[in-house]
């Protein structure tokens, strides 16, 4: 069965699915996979540095990862981060319509996001150079740029194999993981 986005059942089942995947310690552990999202959420929830620099931040940030079938991502992913005054309340995949309409949306190809994850691309430079596109109130972002940078730092610290570096078999595994969660949780 698939859960309807926005319902308590959806939320409950999503958390359960992520925890199961974390507990299973399945390999490969892939950047942007559900278990990776779950670990990033936990990391941020216990990170004192993030709590400090993000104390004034309120609102949702969405990382929009553009599709790349060669990496196993057949449709755009919207990673929805519910952030409130230093707390990371939740990180979820969300349907495109929800993701696109969020207050702050940062869009990039999967290669760009991998560059950010590898710390090869500074996200602020990436946005200035148009390699990542930002939608949202710029003065608020600039005021909280330390929080944005800490988010990125922690994403790199979670680890995981990058989707651009998977072998063909792993690409298919990742494709299935994303496909299943997309179907089960009505994320399209």
């Amino acid at each position: 069965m698939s859960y309807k986005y926005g319902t308590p059942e959806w939320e409950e089942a999503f958390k359960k699915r992520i925890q199961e995947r974390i507990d299973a310690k399945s390999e490969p552990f892939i950047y942007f996979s559900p278990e990776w999202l779950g670990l990033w959420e936990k990391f941020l929830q216990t990170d004192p540095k993030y709590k400090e620099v993000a104390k004034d931040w309120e609102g949702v940030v969405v990382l929009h990862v553009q599709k790349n079938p060669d990496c196993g991502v057949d449709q755009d992913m919207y990673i929805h981060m519910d952030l409130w005054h230093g707390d990371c309340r939740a990180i979820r995949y969300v349907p495109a319509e929800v993701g696109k309409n969020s207050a702050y949306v940062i869009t990039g190809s999967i290669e760009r996001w991998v560059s950010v994850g590898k710390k090869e691309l500074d996200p602020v430079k990436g946005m200035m150079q148009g390699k990542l596109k930002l939608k949202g109130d710029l003065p608020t972002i600039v005021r909280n740029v330390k929080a944005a940078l800490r988010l990125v730092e922690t994403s790199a610290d979670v680890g995981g194999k990058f989707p651009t570096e998977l072998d063909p078999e792993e690409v298919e595994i990742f494709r299935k993981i994303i496909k299943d969660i997309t179907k089960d949780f009505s994320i399209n």
Partner: protein
Amino acid sequence: MNCEAGYAKRLLEVELTQGKIQKTPLDETLLKNFLGGGGLAAKLFLDRFSPDTDPLSKENPLIVMTGPLVGTLFPGSSRFAVCARSPQTGFWGIGTCGGNFGPELKFAGYDGILIEGKAEKPVYLLIDDESVEIKDAADLWGKDLYEVTDLLKQRHGEKKKPKILAIGPGGENKVLYAAIGNDNAHYIGRTGMGAVMGSKNLKAIVVTGTGKVIPALAEEYKEVRSRVIEKCNSSMVGQSMKSMGTAAALDLGMMTGDVPIRNWRQGEFEGSGKTGGPAMTADYLTKGHACFACPIACKRVVKVDAGPYQTNEGPGPEYETCCTFGSFIENNNLEGIIKANELCNRYGVDTISCGSTIAFAMECFEKGILTTSDTDGMELTWGNIDVALKLIEKIALREGIGDLLALGSVKAAQKIGKGAEAYAVAVKGLELPAHDPRGFHGMGLEYAVGYRGACHLQHMSLYIEQGMCTFEDAGFKSDYNGQSSDGKAKMVYLSQNLGVPASSACLCVFVFACLEAQDVADMIHTVTGRDFSQEDLLNIGARIWLLMRGLTNLMGARSNDDSLPNNVMTPLDNGMSAGSKPDLEKMLKEYYELRGIDSNGIPKKEVLDNAGLHDLAVRLHGGA
């Protein structure tokens, strides 16, 4: 008179001593080789004037020059240059500015104005298309820049909307870093061009014009213009400038070690979040304001409603001013900065050199080099914005300690002695703008070799090294590590060759930062109708850079002037660039090699010859 293919092809020449006015044609080859702006002004200076002239004498010309893009509807096409030998540095002086004056001068049918001599008494110049008059300014002398601009607009604005260039008391009193203002909101601040104007008893220039600037290739021009506007609108640089003004860079700069603090002695400043673009936008912005034909509109209009720093609605501080009257003196009161900006504007002094010189004085006071007996009883303590505001007035009016500080930090330090020179933060006599070479080593090299002294505008290094744009199509790497000196000589060399011609074509750097090099070549091509490639852009850039560098050499600069000041070459203990120090020796060696500069700091004869600057080569190296 219309300007066909980007140029009026004539120069307005005004000789103030005898009151002579003439309109002289500009040679097509000259326009082709030097484009306009600072490049063309430098060529005119080289051909006709002595580099030994006393900067404040009637022999020093003041050259106002536009470029081919000025007056078109391309974004960023509002700019113009004002040049002379600088009274502040003794070297080639150039200040550039946006606004509306440049386009209006083109509409009147002139590419530039060359002003010589000195009027016997205060005058202003009134240009109304073909009609040019030298008018009595007795009633205007002594008025501040806002007052005189408003008054002249009222006086000559019954039927038309004149555009004004004017000086305030700072220029009249020959403060060595006096500015010239355009319509209150735009300033030629650097290198003291306001003092040169004041030395000629020229209070203002009023211009109205009814012509147009007609691009040679109308259809291609439209296509390029649409592309360029789209890039400005979609670029994050453009968007951040539009929403927060240039001061957006302050909050970001604190993250990268770009922002100088406490006369360049510290790396951390608690107040930075209170004095940048977001804070100004949230609390004081009344509206944005654009230069001619610009979709970005980075200018701020602000107002402080009440309190000790109350201001009328007016031009807001730029990034540089937020730093020089903020972090430079450890002041975190943005209202005080807005007030300081208004005072500098009204008096007509450069906010960078003024704030820097005050920061220098504060460090001298801290070190006991200056005491209250030198400072008219004032305690020049860090963070004291009230003292800074008093100092602005004293400097502009040259009263008490202000008379000393009106010389700028380098000349003031020489007069003070007692080791004060160590705390002046300037290159070739020009105070550094607010970008720290310890955070961005390439900027250190850029400052050191700059023909006008420490410069942040006549090149693209600032934007490239900070990653705001990449220009990979012009040979740059996609990413530079700010706190490394590796590869910076080439970056600076290329960025000058790219930035200088854009500046001479009179394109705004903020717009350029939203574009690619090919776009600029296309803009010049469609306006002038000439074949103009990216390679042409870089070649002309090299020629103009060498010309201006050569002028500065003729005025006495040598390799020992290509240096960085003590405070900047001392690593910081804290902040984002703690421990970092530019390897200037290495970068200079590599840069001299690339540029073809000899050990005396002078471009080699064959390099000048190859760039088409034979006359300059002869004057620098002899021979025929």
